[in-house]
């Protein structure tokens, strides 16, 4: 029997580990047990606090247990306020320690391009298997050179509105144009049922309303070459309309709202319509005894969804993309890559997708065909919202500069300053000079 010394044993077992690591998910599944290398490996996944709490519970329980069983990886899912994710990401990158995978919102991956690992192989495989990514998912998670993260989902945004209140002022459907919406909003506000819209520093609701308003009037941050073209007649018109719409139709407390304020206001019956994800409807539907209308009927039965109206330049929307970034500083790169491939795979993702009940559409087009969209006609408008959605930076590239402008809330503050009394021309001039500093 040949003698195996300590050095040789180490060499052999190392080779075994490498083989296990390079075998891919298929090899792991074929083996029917987790590879030895991953035993005891712990991965930290940082995400937002989901507006659908059942999804967080699913990730922290069933998915975590399944992950341990399938991959031998102990998954630690941490959920925090979405507004704090950027701060956590910066701290983790600068200290070189933190979550292995961070689920970024909006176009934030562009800000952290130098600090994320290349996951092109995983992203391309997921895209190929699941019908291809939406343009929006690609534009925020890919910088033209590589994939900065694997697109996870897109949270659909539509206007949730009170059907009976709209009907009471003569509107049987959601308005088609901004002028119609303003006319309707005036009547509703006069009845003490204003439209509610956030106009503060928050990642979701403010951009999803105010950017489409800008685009629908023909305003743009930059042209295709990346030259700042915000200061235009179209932008000024959109700001003028925004101010009038705010005064005539909106709950003026929206200047101090965060992304959950409009949910609370709508569920409490103080606003008639708000641009939001489907969480208002889903939460109301989940607790029909708790959330009721003024007649004592379940509130969810009086909620419908409509897409933002069109302006002189057309109809636009902004949907909220999520991207899983594999952080470059992570010490468990190989395990994290396996995890990403696993959690984005159809069977695992399906569990999470079902728990969302339509709140998120997938990052790929295949999920448009999921039977979930046939279950509830009120949720049907969300099925295709991600098609043709536009993103900050438009008409320029949605690159790091666009991400910086969004993170500084320049477009939101342009409208907020005008609403607070600054002349629209002056507010546009201010925003333009701020953008020029970024795009210089």
């Amino acid at each position, binding site marked *: 029997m040949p003698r195996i010394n300590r050095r040789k044993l180490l060499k052999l077992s190392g080779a075994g580990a490498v083989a296990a690591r390079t075998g891919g998910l298929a090899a792991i599944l074929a083996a029917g047990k987790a590879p030895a290398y991953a035993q005891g490996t712990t991965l930290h996944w940082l995400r937002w606090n989901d507006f659908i709490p059942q999804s967080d519970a699913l990730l922290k329980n069933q998915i975590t247990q399944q992950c341990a069983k399938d991959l031998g990886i102990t998954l630690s899912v941490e959920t925090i306020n979405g507004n704090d994710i950027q701060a956590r990401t910066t*701290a983790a990158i600068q200290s070189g320690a933190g979550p292995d995978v961070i689920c970024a919102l909006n176009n934030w991956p562009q800000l952290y391009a130098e*600090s994320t690992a290349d996951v092109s192989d995983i992203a391309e495989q997921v895209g190929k298997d699941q019908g291809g990514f939406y343009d929006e998912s690609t534009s925020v998670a890919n910088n033209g050179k590589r994939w900065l993260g694997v697109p996870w989902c897109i949270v659909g945004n539509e206007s949730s509105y009170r059907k009976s209140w709209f009907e009471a002022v003569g509107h049987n459907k959601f308005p088609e144009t901004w002028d119609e919406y303003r006319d309707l909003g005036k009547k509703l506000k006069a009845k003490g049922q204003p439209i509610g819209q956030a106009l503060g520093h928050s990642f979701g609701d403010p951009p999803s309303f105010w950017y489409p308003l800008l685009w629908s009037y023909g305003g743009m941050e930059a042209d295709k070459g990346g030259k700042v073209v915000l200061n235009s007649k179209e932008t000024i018109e959109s700001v003028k309309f925004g101010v009038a719409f705010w005064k005539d139709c909106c709950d003026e407390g929206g200047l101090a709202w965060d992304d959950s304020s409009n949910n609370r206001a709508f569920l409490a019956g103080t606003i008639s319509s708000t641009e939001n994800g489907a969480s208002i409807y889903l939460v109301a539907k989940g607790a029909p005894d708790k959330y009721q209308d003024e007649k004592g009927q379940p509130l969810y039965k009086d909620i419908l969804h409509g897409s933002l109206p069109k302006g002189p330049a057309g109809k636009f929307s902004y949907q909220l993309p999520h991207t899983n970034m594999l952080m470059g500083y992570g010490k468990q790169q190989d395990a994290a890559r396996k995890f990403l491939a696993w959690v984005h795979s159809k069977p695992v993702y399906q569990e999470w997708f079902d728990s969302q009940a339509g709140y998120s559409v997938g990052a790929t087009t295949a999920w448009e065909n999921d039977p979930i969209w046939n279950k509830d006609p009120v949720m049907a408008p969300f099925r295709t919202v991600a098609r043709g959605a536009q993103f900050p930076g438009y008409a320029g590239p949605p690159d790091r500069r666009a991400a910086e402008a969004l993170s500084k809330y320049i477009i939101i503050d342009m409208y*907020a300053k005008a609403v607070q009394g600054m002349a629209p021309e002056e507010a546009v001039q201010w925003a333009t000079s701020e953008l020029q500093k970024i795009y210089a």
Partner: protein
Amino acid sequence: MAVSDLVSQRAFAGVPRRGAATRLLEDERWLAAALLAPTAILLGLFIAYPFCEGVWLSVTDARVGVPGHFVGLDNFAALWNDSIFRVAVWNTFVYTAVASVFKLGLGLWLALLLNRSFRGKAFTRAFILLPFIIPTVLSTLAWKWMFDPTFSVINWTLFHLGLIHARINWLGDPVLALISVIVVNVWRGVPFFAISLLAGLQTVNPELQEAAAIDGARAWQRFWHVTWPLLLPVTMVVMLFSIIQTFSDFQLVYVLTGGGPANATQLFATYAYQIGVGTGLLSQGAAISLAMFPFLLIVVVVQLLYIRRVEVH
């Protein structure tokens, strides 16, 4: 063995042996250095190093994950033309000045009340400290609910008392939002002033008050000519500490308004955080933070000079 050898060995055994370290520490210069070393290391690690790192960052174009290059004073020049930075500077001075004056006035008033004898004095004194004890984030969240644009309990109360007919937009109006953060800061800071000044009041000899009263001095005269001069050293120290804390305040504004609406309540610290940590522009964030330094340095120098003067007297 020679007799002399035995004698010398015995004599040597009678003197305790001294190691090299002991001999070194008997030298006052080395002992002083050894005693100062832990403090110096702590100060170096947790104060000097971050400060130097901050200074270095402020003269580079570093972004999150990108070390950056030396750009001289470009970041400070950019601040000069930054309208939001100018708002943050103005807000910080207004916030500090107004909040400090109110904290001093209310704190002194409360201290004078608590210095009297009444039933339940010990309980009241402990109760007064509550705003100071509760973590700032928690208490500020409670205030956020009270100022909530839709569900404000303050508005509800004023409305039901018939004092208002329309909702007050506490955190959505730029002026009211700044007033709101000042109110919460005063609420939180008054106990610190009250308890510190109460401690100062208790060192004032009651006989001086009695003597002044016998001489016919009225309450106000006794306070102004006897109590206040004796309380002044404590007041100065408390005031200077409070100014430093208020000037560099972060968590209260961050939780209550996030610097909004539209940057109307940004302070140095919140704006530095938004730019440096939120947006990842580390160098610009560091430059905003460092812009606080000259003012805080002046405050600290004044404080140290005053303390030295008091010690001399």
